[in-house]
C-alpha cells in the first residue's frame, strides 16, 4: 500500500472538487478499494472520504419510483421494506452476494464502482492491461475459469462481479451522478463499459463525477421475477453465471421480459433481441431456450470457462421458468427451484 493523503469531504461540492484532481479515489465502504490498495493494484495519492455526505437515504419518487442513496449500505437497501416489497428482485440479488459483514459495509455507489474480477488484475506480479496498460492479458491462455464469455476483447476478459448491478440492469435503473459539469443521469445498462481497447476504464464516469443515487422506475415486477446465481460453492463466491429476470405475463403470454446476465462479461449483459423475441410469445421451455441462445449469441470461451456458455443457457432457461411460475429463487434455501 502506498502513502496517500486523506480528506473527509464536508459536502458534495467539496467532494466533487477534491475528486477532480488526478490520482484521487472516493472512499465509501472501502470493501474493494482498500483490498486493492493493500495489493498495490490501486495506488491513489489522495482519498476523499465521502461517508459523511448526505447521500444515505432511500426516498420515494413522485410517480412511484424509489431513489436509493449512493451511501446506503447494501444491507440496508436489501432489508428496506420498500425495496423488499416493490423491488424484491433487487433485495434478492443483493442478498445473493458477498457476506453479511461485507454487505453491512459496502454501499450502493461502491457496488456500482467495484473493479472487475480477475486473478491477474489482483496480482501485480503478472501481466494485466487493466492494471498496467500494454503489459498484456495474463488471463487469456491462463487460468480463466471465472472469466468473460461475452463482450470481451483481446485486451481483457475480466468480468464485473456485482450481483446488485445485474438486478439493476434488469430493472432499468438509472444512475444519478454529479460532477464538475453538473448533474446527469446514466441508464444502468450504459453505466459500465466493455473492455475494448481501454480495459482500465470500467465505466463511463468522468473525472470528478460522483454517484449520488440510483433511481428505480415505477414498475411492478413483484409477481414474476427471480435472481438465480450459480457459483463454485453455495455462498460467498462470485457468480460463474447469474441471471436476473423480470417478466409481465398475461395468462401464459409474455408481455414483457427482461433478462440480465452476471458473471459473464465486463458489465451486466442484456440483449434486446432476446427480450423482444420473448414479447408476445408463450411462456414455454422452447421459447426460453430460444431466448437463452439469443442472449448468449456470440459467446466465446477461453478454455477453462468454456462450460459457462452452456451453463449460462441452462441458467437462463431455469430463471425464466422460475419467473414465469412466480417461484423466485430463495437466497437462503440453496435448493434450486
Amino acid at each position, binding site marked *: *500500500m*502506498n*502513502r496517500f493523503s486523506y480528506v473527509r469531504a464536508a459536502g458534495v461540492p467539496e467532494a466533487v472538487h477534491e475528486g477532480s484532481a488526478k490520482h484521487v479515489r472516493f472512499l465509501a465502504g472501502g470493501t474493494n478499494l482498500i483490498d486493492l490498495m*493493500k495489493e*498495490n493494484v490501486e495506488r491513489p495519492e489522495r482519498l476523499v472520504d465521502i461517508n459523511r455526505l448526505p447521500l444515505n437515504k432511500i426516498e420515494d419518487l413522485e410517480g412511484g419510483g424509489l431513489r436509493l442513496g449512493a451511501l446506503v449500505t447494501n444491507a440496508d437497501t436489501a432489508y428496506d421494506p420498500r425495496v423488499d416489497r416493490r423491488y424484491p428482485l433487487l433485495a434478492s440479488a443483493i442478498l445473493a452476494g458477498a457476506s453479511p459483514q461485507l454487505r453491512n459495509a459496502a454501499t450502493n455507489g461502491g457496488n456500482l464502482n467495484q473493479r472487475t474480477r480477475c*486473478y*491477474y488484475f*489482483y*496480482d501485480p*506480479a*503478472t501481466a494485466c492491461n487493466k492494471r498496467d496498460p500494454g503489459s498484456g492479458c*495474463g488471463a487469456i*491462455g*491462463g*487460468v480463466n*475459469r*471465472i472469466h468473460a464469455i461475452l463482450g470481451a476483447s483481446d485486451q481483457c476478459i475480466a468480468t464485473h462481479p456485482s450481483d446488485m448491478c445485474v438486478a439493476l440492469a434488469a430493472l432499468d435503473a438509472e444512475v444519478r451522478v454529479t460532477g464538475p459539469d453538473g448533474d446527469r443521469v446514466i441508464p444502468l445498462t450504459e453505466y459500465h463499459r466493455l473492455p475494448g481497447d481501454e480495459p482500465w476504464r470500467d465505466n463511463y464516469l468522468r473525472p470528478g463525477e460522483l454517484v449520488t443515487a440510483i433511481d428505480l422506475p415505477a414498475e411492478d415486477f413483484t409477481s414474476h421475477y427471480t435472481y438465480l446465481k*450459480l457459483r*463454485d*460453492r*453455495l*455462498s*460467498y*463466491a*462470485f457468480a*460463474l453465471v447469474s441471471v436476473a429476470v423480470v417478466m409481465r405475463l398475461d395468462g401464459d403470454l409474455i408481455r414483457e421480459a427482461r433478462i440480465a446476465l452476471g458473471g459473464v462479461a465486463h458489465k451486466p449483459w442484456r440483449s434486446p433481441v432476446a427480450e423482444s423475441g420473448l414479447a408476445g410469445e408463450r411462456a414455454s421451455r422452447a421459447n426460453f431456450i430460444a431466448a437463452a441462445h439469443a442472449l448468449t449469441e456470440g459467446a466465446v470461451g477461453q478454455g477453462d470457462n468454456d*462450460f459457462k456458455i*452452456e*451453463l449460462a443457457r*441452462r*441458467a437462463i432457461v*431455469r430463471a425464466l421458468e422460475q419467473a414465469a411460475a412466480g417461484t423466485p429463487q430463495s437466497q437462503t434455501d*440453496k*435448493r*434450486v*427451484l
Partner: protein
Amino acid sequence: MTSPTLTPTRIGDPVDRVDGVAKVTGQARYAAEQPADRLLYGWVVSSSIAKGRIVAIHDEDARAISGVVEVMTHVNRPQLPRFDHSYKDALCVPGSPFRALYDERILFNAQPIAVVLADSLEVARYAASLIEVDYERETHNTDFTVALADRFVPQDKRSGFEAPKNRGDAQSAYGAARCKIAADFHLPTHYHNPMELHATTVVWEGDGRITVYDKTQGPQNVQGYLSAVFGFSPEHVRVKNPYVGGAFGSGLRPQYQVYLATLAAKMLERSVRVVLTRQQMFSHVHRPEAVQSVALATDPSGRLQAIINDAATSTSRFEDYMETVCDWGLMNYACENASAEYTIARVDTYTSGDMRAPGAATGMTLFELAVDEMAYAANIDPLEFRLINYSDKNAMDDTPFTSKALREAYAQGAAKFGWSRRTPAPRSMKDGRELVGLGLATGMWDALFRQMAVHARLLPNGDLEVATAGSDIGTGTYTVMAQVAADTLGLPIEKVTATLGDSSLPESPAEGGSSMAASVGAAVQVACRAVAEKLLVAADQIEGQPLGGARLEDVTLAHGRIALKSDPARSISFGDAMSAAGLETIEVEDTPASRSGSSGQSRKSRNTHSAIFAEVKVDEELGVVRVTRIVIAVAAARIINPKTARSQILGGVVMGIGMALHEEALTDHRIGRCMNRNLGEYHIPAHADIRDIEVIFVDEPDPEVTPLGVKGVGEIGIVGTAAAVINAIFHATGKRVRSLPVTLDKLLDS
C-alpha cells in the same frame, strides 16, 4: 481446602474447553500479538518468477523511506552455515532444506527474496512495494502431469516411511479376472490455510538470548532448528506458542517466517516481527498433487482377487517429500494379491508436506472411489461389498489390530443414516427436481503414540499444574490435559492449570498425526500418579498413620482427599498429608514407558477406522450439488472428551466436503504461479455448504493401543469423507468424476 464440593472431572466427560473464554474474548495472544520493545516489523518481498536468478534488487527507493531500518537480502544478510545438515529440522525429509535469502537462486514462485524492516508495519509494507527486482529466468515446470514422465522411487526414504508391501501376484490375478475395473484418480494441490497466518515475533533479550513467539506445532523443533542455523546455544533460544490458530500440519516444520524474523533480529540486534500475508500462505507447504491408478478385480461373489494401487505425488526440486498413500487400500481389504508402487515427481514449487491425515486423505479417499466402482461392476451393494472383503487383520502385513470395530461402525452408521432405504441403481432416487444420491466410504488412520514428558505440581489446597512443551493447535489439548489430570487426582477441572507451548517445558514432540491426546494424556496420568504416590508417602507422616500405609490401588482420590477403598470413612486431605510431611508442593516430572517396549506388542497394528455415509442432492441440469447429510461412525477406542473429539471429527468432515467439492490450487503453468491465492478464490466450504453432520463414536475398548486406551481423532474425520460424497454424486447422477474437486462444470455434460 477450597471448593472441595465440585464434582471430580472424569475422563469421558464432555468438558467445555478450558481455553475457550480466553480465545473468544481476545485474551489469548497469538504469535503476531506478542509485545516487544523497539519492535521492528518485517515485510516479506516475494519473487515473481518460478525459477532463475536474481540479478539485482533495487532497494534504494525503499531505503529512502523514513522509518525503514534495513532491507535484508541475500547480498547483505548475516553469515549462514554452508551445509545442509545445519538446516535439517526434526521433521525434515531427504534433500536440501530451503534457505531463504541464502543466495541469488530462485527455486519457486513467490519465494521470499527480501525483508523490509521498519518501525511500523505500514512503512515496511509501503517500502516493500517500491522494490524492483531484475531476474534472469530459467525454464521451469510446475505442471505435475508433465513431471510424471520423470517420476521416481527415491533412494533415501523419509524417516519412518515404509514402502507398501506387495503380496501374491496382483498383475496375473487382475489379468485372469473377468470382473474388474481400472481407473486413474487425481487430487489437486491443497493449501493448509489455517485461520492464523504464519507469524513470528522474535524478542531480542539483549543478553544473547532470544524469546521466539512462533506459529508452530513444535516449539522444541523450532528451538533446535534456530540454534543450528543461527549458532545460538539451545538454552539461549526459548520458543513459545501458547496459542496456535489452527495449523493442519503447516506448522510441523519450521516455516520461513521464523527463519527470516530470527535472521533479521540477529542482523539488527533488535526484536522483529514477521507476519506472512494470506497470499504468501500459498507460497510454502501444501498437500502434494496426486494421481492414483487403481485396478481391482473380484470373483463372481464379489471377493477381491486383485488390488493394484499405484500412486505418485508431487515434491520440490530440492527435497523428497513422501507420504503413505498406497498402503491404506492394501491394509484395509482382504485380498490375496495386492501390489502398489509409490513414486514422486519433481515440480518447481516449495516442498509439499504433511496436511491433515497426510497420505490417507489422498490415498484412502481415492481408493474408496475405486472400491465404489468395483462394487458397482460386481453388482453388489457398496456396503455389502465392503463387508464381504472385510479384513479383521491388517491385510498388508498380516498383523492383528489392537482393535478394529469398523464392522460396528458400518452397522451403526448405516442404521442411523438409513442406508437400507437406498435403491442401488444410479439415478433411481429423486426429491422433486433434484436427484438424490447416497454414498459410502471407509476411513482409516494411524493410532499413534509418542513418548513425552509432563511436569506436575500439586499445592496443598488441591491446585494442580501440569505442563509440557507440546502444543495445542486448536484441538483441545489444554482441555484434555487438565481433564486427565483432574481424573487421576479426583479433582474438578477448575482446580487444574495446564501449560503448553514453551520449549523450556518438559520434552514433547510436535503436535501431529493425531498423537497428542493419547500421548499427553498418558504422560499426564503417569505424572499425576507419581504425585499421588508421593501424597501417600506424605500421608504416612501423619501421626497414627490413618491410612495405614495404603498403596495407590487401595485408595480413592476425590474432592482433595485420599480415602481408603475398604473404609471410605478413613480419609485425609491432600493438605493435611503435605503439611505432615512439611511439603509446600509436590512436584514430579515423568515420562510413560514406551509403548513398543516389548517386542510382542509392536507386532500389532494400531489404527482408527471410520464409516462415512453421505447424502447429496444434485440439480443435474445446472450441476449444483448440495451435501445434505453426513453420518460418520468412528472407531477410535476410548474418547477422553466427547465434545472436543466431536469437534475434531466435524472439522475433518467439513474439510473432506471441501476436498470433494471445492479445494483446488489453480496454477498458471506458463509462469509457475498459483493464481487463486486468497480465501475469496481458493474455495473451502462456506456455512451454506454444510448441513447436518452426525458423529457416532462406536464402542471400541482397547487397553492395548496406548496407555490410556485412547486413539487420536484429529485426522480420521477427513479420511474418506470426500469419497463418500463423490460416491453419492455417482449414485445420484450416474456420473463418475475422477478428478477432484467435483465442480459443477464436471457434471454438466450430458
